[in-house]
């Protein structure tokens, strides 16, 4: 009985295991894990540095998870290639593992641009894995000056995580605003202010031209002295396994709604995929946790002969910095793209709802969190806004804006 | 305007140590007594608006509230009592007729409480209802004078139409309009489940409730609201309302603001028009006229439905009943002066009419004396409060009883006696949607069923104690009653002996 093979041991992999086991409780599963840890909650590494969690609590599943799921985990192993004719995954060690079907849940890797002099920086860290966090944590001391390159989610979460453990933090980014992939200028400004109030310094629209061991020379001509450098510029999906087979690959491995790749018996899930974003009307890498689970689970079910469709992928993030919370989802279309933006604001909050073709395509909520999932579901379900009381929804997220029948379905029967 | 002479009647007493400012009292008070002060962080109360309906008290989760009668009184005076003074102030203020609701609250004698029930000892031993079958079922309608047989000697069983009741109690007339849809629904469901009957009052029958027709008595009153062929055919019986115990001699008035939506459609009158029931039926000035209406209704319903004539208990009640018994009516309903209402002029409610106990005894005796008792069944109403009131009424001669106030209490009514305001906090005497929804008929009907089931148990136990195993055998059995503290005259009218005799 050839096993199911899962390459990767993150959330998508765990979900894939659970997906398989919801259908097939017998066939063995082999997990190839580069990291020497059971599946853990990667987004928590900043909370770990902050002291809000610890390795034990960060574990995603109970210690007996793999045993109960009848999985063999090969820790510290890396898959280098797949032979689709012999249906074998080849490990770095040269060993081959035969599979009935395989799921690529191999995630992404930090992307490091070529900075001049970077090799001279001794104290440089990525911020992706728990090992990265552990190493960074070891290096930190209360007087340390830290330069974080990248003001995206990873860079800023890192800044918050180490805030109480470093002397000074500077964050630089080539973009003119923080969180440029999920926030527009004004919203980004609000988040930036919250972080600046906490003492974090920003150098935006600026990039490092050249490194010395403890100094960065910026394009603007400024210099930043640092003791520790964190590189959080971005990530790249790990696509090589499929690319080498001639499979269809864009910025991630192209996936359909059944989590199949273009190569038979090879499934894919999580950060390494490029799938449909229903708010975009096209494919996009959706490197977010919920997506990894949903895809992983669907992949597992389909690998085991069941049927599960995963076709409601949208970008979404819920993220807080120093008490200021931002929630975002979907795509924001400006007037030039036929979109319309509705805004509600108070002194400390800002809500933007983006509408196109009579449907909600995206939103940004700063300082507002109540019942945000109702907005998210409007996007996911592509609900025509003429079926709901959108005037009410502009003000508050509430099921009261839906029809009585719709509420009956939601609240008067099992869902 | 000027000085307010009337000090608030009630005090809202809030235990600040227990109040958690959850504001349930505020949300639940349609009279807007309670409010929250964000500045002070406490609840405030405007006691001038309080009617002592106890809704807030009942819903306060920490029992922080009580409503008490204000100890603030005018100077004591046996002749000019506080209420009298207040009423004078009110009329001096408004120039209007005083309005009240529910039953007469004045301290007139309650004869039920001066009548005691017998029980068996040694001879004719008591019956244990847990071990032996007990019959509480009654049939209302004209009964044959004598046994008839055909030529072959077989019994002729052609009875005039009857109402069958599992126990001798019915819910008496309360119109849709005076009470809410949900109150009506609760009554209809409970009556059906219990195998008894409820009464539409003169507001017509909402189309949703035709399904409960076999347990419905449809009323035809002086306004003839909502009366049409289907309506008459829908019910188990038809009641002609000549009068009402709470307001004998006058009609009814449901203000236009309550004639909305379904109420308007059911009454068959335009929205917003006042529903005025005249004091008389304009086609009835004699027993002969009444007979015409009785037979018109019988004709319209193919002689399939018994006809009830309901009158208020007034001075000549026995004579009037005698006339009705000869009019072709099948059942006479007599409503005593303590009966409730949604709105009545206070002076009439408190001063017109006579007690049901005396009226019932007088009517039963008169019909017997005239040999026409079997022409009609008698239903007694007007403040029947318990199973023992029912038993006493049956022993005095009633075939069954009507209850309404007791039924409303089961539905949550706290007898605040401000039905006429239309702001019933218990969702009963109101048409405001936010208030009517407070009465969930699932709860309402279950409580009514509970109440009646409890009474039925008590009735069985008490008549069993008398050695009687069927309620029919108690009817008119005044030997089972004794009076205490009554005058010779009262005993004579009631037809009972004094205790000890």
């Amino acid at each position: 009985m050839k096993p199911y093979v899962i390459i990767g041991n993150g959330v998508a992999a765990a979900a894939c295991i659970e997906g398989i086991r919801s259908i097939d409780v017998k066939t063995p599963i082999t997990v190839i894990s580069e990291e020497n840890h059971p599946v853990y909650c990667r987004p928590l590494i900043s909370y770990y540095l902050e002291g809000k969690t610890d390795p034990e609590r960060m574990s995603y599943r109970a210690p007996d998870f793999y045993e109960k799921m009848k999985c063999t985990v090969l820790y510290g192993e890396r898959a280098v290639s797949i032979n689709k004719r012999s249906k074998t995954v080849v490990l770095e060690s040269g060993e081959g593992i035969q599979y009935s079907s395989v799921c690529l849940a191999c995630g992404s890797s930090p992307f490091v641009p070529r900075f001049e002099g970077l090799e001279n920086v001794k104290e440089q860290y990525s911020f992706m894995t728990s090992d990265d966090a552990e190493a960074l944590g070891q290096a930190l001391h209360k007087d340390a000056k830290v330069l974080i390159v990248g003001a995206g989610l990873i860079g800023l979460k890192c800044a918050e995580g180490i805030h109480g453990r470093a002397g000074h933090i500077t964050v630089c980014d080539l973009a003119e605003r923080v969180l440029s992939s999920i926030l527009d200028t004004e919203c980004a400004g609000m988040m930036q202010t919250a972080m600046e109030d906490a003492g974090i310094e920003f150098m935006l629209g600026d990039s490092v031209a050249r490194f010395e061991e403890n100094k960065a020379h910026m394009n603007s001509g400024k210099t930043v002295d640092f003791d520790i450098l964190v590189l959080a510029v971005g990530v790249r999906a790990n696509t090589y396994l499929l690319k080498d087979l001639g499979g269809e690959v864009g910025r991630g491995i192209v996936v359909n709604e059944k989590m199949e790749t273009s190569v038979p018996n090879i499934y894919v899930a999580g950060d390494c995929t490029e799938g449909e974003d229903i708010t975009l009307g096209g494919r996009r890498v959706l490197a977010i946790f919920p997506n990894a689970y949903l895809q992983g689970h669907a992949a597992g079910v389909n690998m085991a002969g069941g049927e599960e469709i995963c076709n409601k992928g949208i970008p979404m993030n819920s993220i807080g910095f120093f008490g200021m919370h931002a929630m975002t989802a979907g795509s924001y279309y400006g007037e030039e793209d036929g979109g319309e933006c509705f805004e509600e604001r108070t002194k400390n909050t800002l809500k933007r709802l983006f509408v196109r073709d009579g449907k909600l395509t995206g939103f940004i909520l700063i300082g507002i969190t109540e019942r945000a999932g109702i907005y998210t579901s409007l996007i996911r379900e592509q609900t025509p806004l003429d079926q709901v009381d959108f005037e009410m929804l502009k003000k508050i997220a509430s099921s009261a804006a839906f029809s009585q029948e719709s509420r009956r379905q939601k609240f008067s029967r099992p869902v | 305007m000027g000085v307010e002479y009337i000090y608030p009647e009630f005090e809202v007493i809030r235990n600040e140590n227990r109040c958690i400012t959850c504001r349930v009292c505020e949300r639940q008070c349609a009279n807007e007594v309670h409010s929250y002060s964000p500045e002070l962080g406490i609840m405030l109360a405007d006691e001038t608006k309080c009617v002592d309906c106890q809704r807030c008290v009942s819903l306060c989760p920490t029992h922080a509230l009580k409503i008490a009668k204000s100890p603030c009184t005018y100077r004591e005076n046996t002749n000019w009592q506080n209420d009298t003074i207040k009423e004078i102030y009110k009329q001096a203020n408004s120039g209007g007729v005083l309005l009240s609701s529910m039953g007469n609250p004045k301290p007139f004698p309650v004869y039920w409480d001066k009548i005691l029930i017998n029980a068996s000892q040694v001879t004719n031993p008591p019956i244990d209802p847990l071990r032996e079958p007990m019959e509480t079922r009654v049939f209302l309608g004209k009964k044959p004078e004598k046994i008839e047989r055909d030529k072959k000697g077989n019994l002729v069983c052609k009875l005039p139409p009857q109402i069958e009741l599992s126990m001798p109690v019915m819910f008496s007339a309360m119109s849709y309009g005076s009470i809410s849809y949900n109150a009506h629904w609760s009554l209809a469901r409970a009556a059906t489940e219990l195998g008894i009957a409820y009464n539409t009052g003169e507001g017509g029958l909402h189309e949703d409730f035709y399904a409960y027709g076999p347990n419905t008595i449809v009323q035809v009153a002086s306004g003839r609201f909502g009366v049409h062929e289907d309506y008459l055919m829908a019910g188990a019986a038809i009641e002609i309302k000549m009068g009402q115990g709470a307001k004998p001699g006058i009609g009814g008035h449901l203000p236009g603001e309550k004639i909305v939506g379904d109420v308007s459609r059911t009454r068959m009158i335009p929205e917003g028009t006042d529903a005025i029931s005249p004091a008389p039926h304009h086609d009835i000035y004699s027993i002969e006229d009444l007979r015409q209406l009785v037979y018109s209704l019988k004709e319209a319903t193919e002689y399939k439905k018994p006809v009830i004539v309901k009158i208020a208990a007034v001075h000549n009640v026995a004579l009037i009943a005698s006339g009705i018994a000869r009019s072709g009516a099948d059942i006479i309903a007599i409503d005593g002066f303590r009966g409730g209402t949604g709105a009545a002029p206070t002076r009439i409610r408190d001063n017109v009419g006579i007690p049901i106990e005396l009226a019932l005894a007088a009517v039963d005796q008169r019909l017997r004396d005239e040999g026409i008792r079997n022409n009609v069944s008698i239903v007694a109403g007007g403040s029947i409060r318990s199973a023992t009131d029912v038993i006493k009424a049956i022993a005095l001669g009633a075939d069954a009883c009507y209850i309404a106030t007791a039924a409303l209490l089961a539905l949550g009514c706290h007898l605040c006696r401000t039905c006429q305001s239309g702001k019933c906090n218990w969702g009963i005497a109101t048409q405001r949607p936010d208030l009517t929804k407070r009465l969930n008929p699932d709860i309402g009907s279950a409580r009514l069923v509970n109440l009646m089931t409890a009474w039925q148990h008590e009735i069985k136990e008490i008549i069993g104690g008398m050695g009687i195993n069927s309620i029919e055998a108690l009817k008119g059995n005044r030997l089972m009653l004794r009076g205490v503290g009554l005058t010779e005259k009262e005993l004579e009218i009631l037809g009972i002996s004094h205790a000890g005799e």
Partner: protein
Amino acid sequence: MKRVYVNEEWCLACHLCEYNCAFANSGHSDMVLALKGKKLYPRIHVEGDEKISYAVSCRHCLDPLCVKSCIAGALSRKEGIIEVDQNKCVGCLTCVLVCPYGALAPNEDGIMQKCELCLKNSAGEPACVAGCPNKAIVYEEREVI
């Protein structure tokens, strides 16, 4: 499995469910001790206006998005009941972002709490249901349609 359902035609917007919920989950034996002078963080909340109102608490979905989306592995489904491990939750509110019913909200410390049907507190069965004056909230088995 028994779940909490709302009948919005009977909801009076009295908000008692919120107070009964907060009390039941407070660990106190007296509501005054539990709630007086405190901001309320109930696991059920009343939505709507004067015309329509209804209480919303966790639907204990058969296929819960919140569990699948929880970045801390703090949410799980055990015997049909969605539970939160507050020890693991970091308060990211991703569950709030994905719950289509708007049923979730954090506690005063920003950590998630949620309706667990009062099965773990001293109430033993949903306090919102027991305290609802009009049976607008019920706890019963209903068929999956």
